[in-house]
């Protein structure tokens, strides 16, 4: 059974239809909504498998189906679908993982009053994500990209009655929008210089060699597009939203903030890989390395179950970007696929724990769940070992190996490679800590004490995901690099990675050993007891626990600057008419902030502070609007005189 490229649109269309049906269903029709969503996604999964068969028939071909959306007179805007192994594999992954998470959600969200809407949003999300994957036009991709963002906003804020959830949703939306702005500018620039946004178009698309050869200045374009990926994939310095996004229901975290949406940035970079110049790749590689290290470091000192997993996601996404940067997008996609499965497994496992423990998320208050929750424990341990990179049996090991191998072979610098190695140790360490705290010892809280295994709707997906986590490693081993060859027919497997492999096995063992030595040998007795790591290095631990104190540093640097500027603006305001000057001063500060995105410490609290100061400006303006009509008429005459002078001086001719 194969699916022709002309029918590729069916894959996103079915979940979209399910979302519409779900919206129209009467309130409380949870079953209808859920079963439609699951049925639609099952069909999409089957279609994706068909598409995969089509794509595998000739892995090097890029099948396209383009059509004209509208005619501008001086050129038409065209959209289309694209089918190649990358698309097909991503589709299969998203639909399969998505399907399991949908099934899991039927158990997890059963008692929620708004479960019907939840499935609508999930379907909408799946449709947008699939549309993003099959798009052959960067414009269509951008549209879906924004829709994915919107769905994510809705889902993070699903429990809107929690103020943290609402704030997290806002933060996620605004932060990713900053990246999207760069992406949009990049696309505009690209359109400006090539006149098309189609990826492949019989030799005329932006990725076709002819056009690529004629494209100048593409470092900037590549970096602007990368901005979008930085936002969406939670790369440094825009990673701040991802951990906060854990306020959403756990299946959402699994689907969006672990398996699919955050991977969209990596997918985008892999997709437009030919556009990226070596200079752009250097930036990408270092960004990825910093993110991988940073995420792993912070994860070591968190105590919220989901937050640890979130920072590990940040770290793993850093690995993927690192792989792209060092030129091996194939390794990045391999890691993306394996990560999707084991991270979904871990998140669903965490969800299972949280559900059973009556929404207790603090690992210090859990413990001893190994006994009552056997299935969850076993599957979670499999996921944990995959993430930590326990050798040979688990897929995570092979994909991480591929990334490290590529980084090792990078000619420009070895720093990213070493950063990756350090992150390997840290990953093994914090995952050991997590498992030891949650599943071993004895219960330290009310929730954990009364926990028991969940229903089959929740454990079945866990089992399936665990099986995949183990099996998936087989498709990309150095001895049989099927995945790599499928994605990139010119892929050459280089032997001689044995030394490297041995090194990383040793490092994993080191991490596991250190974790067990600190947390496993002497198990925590009381939830209030100090963390062993905090005993050894209290200041470092506190620093990491506060997520490197971004907010405090911000207050010390930007806060003071802002106060000074505000004082100046106020002084000027007293002498100059209305709030115009204040507006300009504030605006200057705003652009200054945006330009200095690289200053990590300014970022986290920066959004709130900036939007607050803009709002203050607006309020000042609002007060200046006194409602006296004389002032209005005065403004006409005043504007007239100013404009005349502007034209005469500006030399309009």
């Amino acid at each position, binding site marked *: 059974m194969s699916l022709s490229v002309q029918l590729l649109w069916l894959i996103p269309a079915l979940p979209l239809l399910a979302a519409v049906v779900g919206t129209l269903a009467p309130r409380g029709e949870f079953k209808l909504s859920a079963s439609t969503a699951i049925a639609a996604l099952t069909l999409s999964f089957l279609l994706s498998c068909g598409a995969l068969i089509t794509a595998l028939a000739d892995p090097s071909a890029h099948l396209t189906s383009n059509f004209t959306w509208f005619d501008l007179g001086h050129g038409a805007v065209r959209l289309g679908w694209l089918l190649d192994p990358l698309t097909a594999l991503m589709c299969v992954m998203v639909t399969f993982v998505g399907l399991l998470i949908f099934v899991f959600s039927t158990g997890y969200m059963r008692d929620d009053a708004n479960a019907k809407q939840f499935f609508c949003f999930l379907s909408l999300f799946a449709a947008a994500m699939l549309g993003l994957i099959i798009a052959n036009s960067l414009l269509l991709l951008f549209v879906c990209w924004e829709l994915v963002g919107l769905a994510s906003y809705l889902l993070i804020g699903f429990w809107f009655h929690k103020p943290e959830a609402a704030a997290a949703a806002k933060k996620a939306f605004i932060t990713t929008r900053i990246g999207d702005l760069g992406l949009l500018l990049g696309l505009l620039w690209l359109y400006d210089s090539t006149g098309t946004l189609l990826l492949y178009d019989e030799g005329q698309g932006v990725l076709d060699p002819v056009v690529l050869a004629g494209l100048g200045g593409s470092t900037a374009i590549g970096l602007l597009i990368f901005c979008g990926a930085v936002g969406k994939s939670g790369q440094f310095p825009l990673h701040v939203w991802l951990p906060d996004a854990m306020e959403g229901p756990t299946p959402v975290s699994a689907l969006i903030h672990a398996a699919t949406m955050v991977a969209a940035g990596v997918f985008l970079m892999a997709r437009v890989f030919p556009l990226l110049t070596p200079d752009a790749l250097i930036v990408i590689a270092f960004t990825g390395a910093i993110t991988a290290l940073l995420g792993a470091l912070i994860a070591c000192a968190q105590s919220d179950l989901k937050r640890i997993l979130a920072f590990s996601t940040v770290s793993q996404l850093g690995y993927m970007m690192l792989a792209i940067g060092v030129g091996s997008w194939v390794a990045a996609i391999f890691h993306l696929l394996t990560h999707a499965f084991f991270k979904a497994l871990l998140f669903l496992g965490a969800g299972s724990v949280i559900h059973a423990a009556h929404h207790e998320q603090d690992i210090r208050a859990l413990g001893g769940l190994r006994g009552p929750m056997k299935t969850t424990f076993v599957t979670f341990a499999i996921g944990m070992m995959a993430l930590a990179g326990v050798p040979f049996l688990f897929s995570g090991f092979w994909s991480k190996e591929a990334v490290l191998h590529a980084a090792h072979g990078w000619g420009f610098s070895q720093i990213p490679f070493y950063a990756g190695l350090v992150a390997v140790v840290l990953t093994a360490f914090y995952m050991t800590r997590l498992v030891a705290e949650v599943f071993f010892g004895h219960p330290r809280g009310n929730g954990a004490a009364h926990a028991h295994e969940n229903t089959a709707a929740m454990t079945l997906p866990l089992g399936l995901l665990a099986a995949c986590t183990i099996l998936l490693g087989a498709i990309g081993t150095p001895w049989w690099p099927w995945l790599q060859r499928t994605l990139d027919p010119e892929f050459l497997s280089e032997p001689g990675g044995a030394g490297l492999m041995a090194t990383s096995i040793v490092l994993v063992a080191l991490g596991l050993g250190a974790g067990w030595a600190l947390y496993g040998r002497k198990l925590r007795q009381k939830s209030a007891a100090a963390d062993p790591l905090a005993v050894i290095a209290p200041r470092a631990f506190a620093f990491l626990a506060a997520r490197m104190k971004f907010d405090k540093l911000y207050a010390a640097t930007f806060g003071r600057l802002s106060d000074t500027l505000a004082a100046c603006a106020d002084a000027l305001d007293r002498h100059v008419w209305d709030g115009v000057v204040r507006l300009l001063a504030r605006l200057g500060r705003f652009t200054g902030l945006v330009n200095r995105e690289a200053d990590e410490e300014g970022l986290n609290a920066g959004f709130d502070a900036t939007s607050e100061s803009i709002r203050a400006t607006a309020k000042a303006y609002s007060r200046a609007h006194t409602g006296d009509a*004389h002032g209005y008429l*005065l403004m006409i*005459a*005043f504007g*007239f*005189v100013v404009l*005349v002078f502007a034209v005469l001086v500006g030399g309009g001719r």
Partner: protein
Amino acid sequence: MMALILIALVTLASAAAAMLLRNLIHSALLLTASWAGLAAFYLWAGAEFVAFAQVLVYVGAISMVVLFAVLLTRPPQPMPVTPPNTLGRALVALITGGAVLGVFIGAIVSSPLPATAAPAPTVSVKQLGLELAGRHAGALLIVGALLTVALLGAVVLAATDREPVGASLDDVRGRPPGTPLQKSGDAP
């Protein structure tokens, strides 16, 4: 030339005085004088019919409407004298108006304009009528609609709704004059 200067000075002086005086009735009367001055200007330029229309509409109709409006909107008790911010506002108005005037004067003086003193052209009423019914027939239709809507709008806005719901235009027909509606209708 001298006649022009004289007309201009009289018109401007009466307009300025009208805008400065505190007594509204005096202002209105002086404005009428200034409108008459404008009519004189039109006569001087040779546009007799326009002068006629100016007198008819402004001196005859609008000034009456203004007087009525002034009488109708008398405050129940005498207004308190000079609110504190009036002086400041006048100063700002003076500066802004002066700036606009400066822009105009600069532009007029520095722009090349035909400097001929051609003999005054004349235009007969018949010629005007032909123009109106000919080239500008479309404009005539539109201005008809415009005056209708002004009439309708002025009636509705100025009417006092004392009657229960269901009352309409016909109910306010009988009220005493003072609303500008009837006057605007015969303007053209």
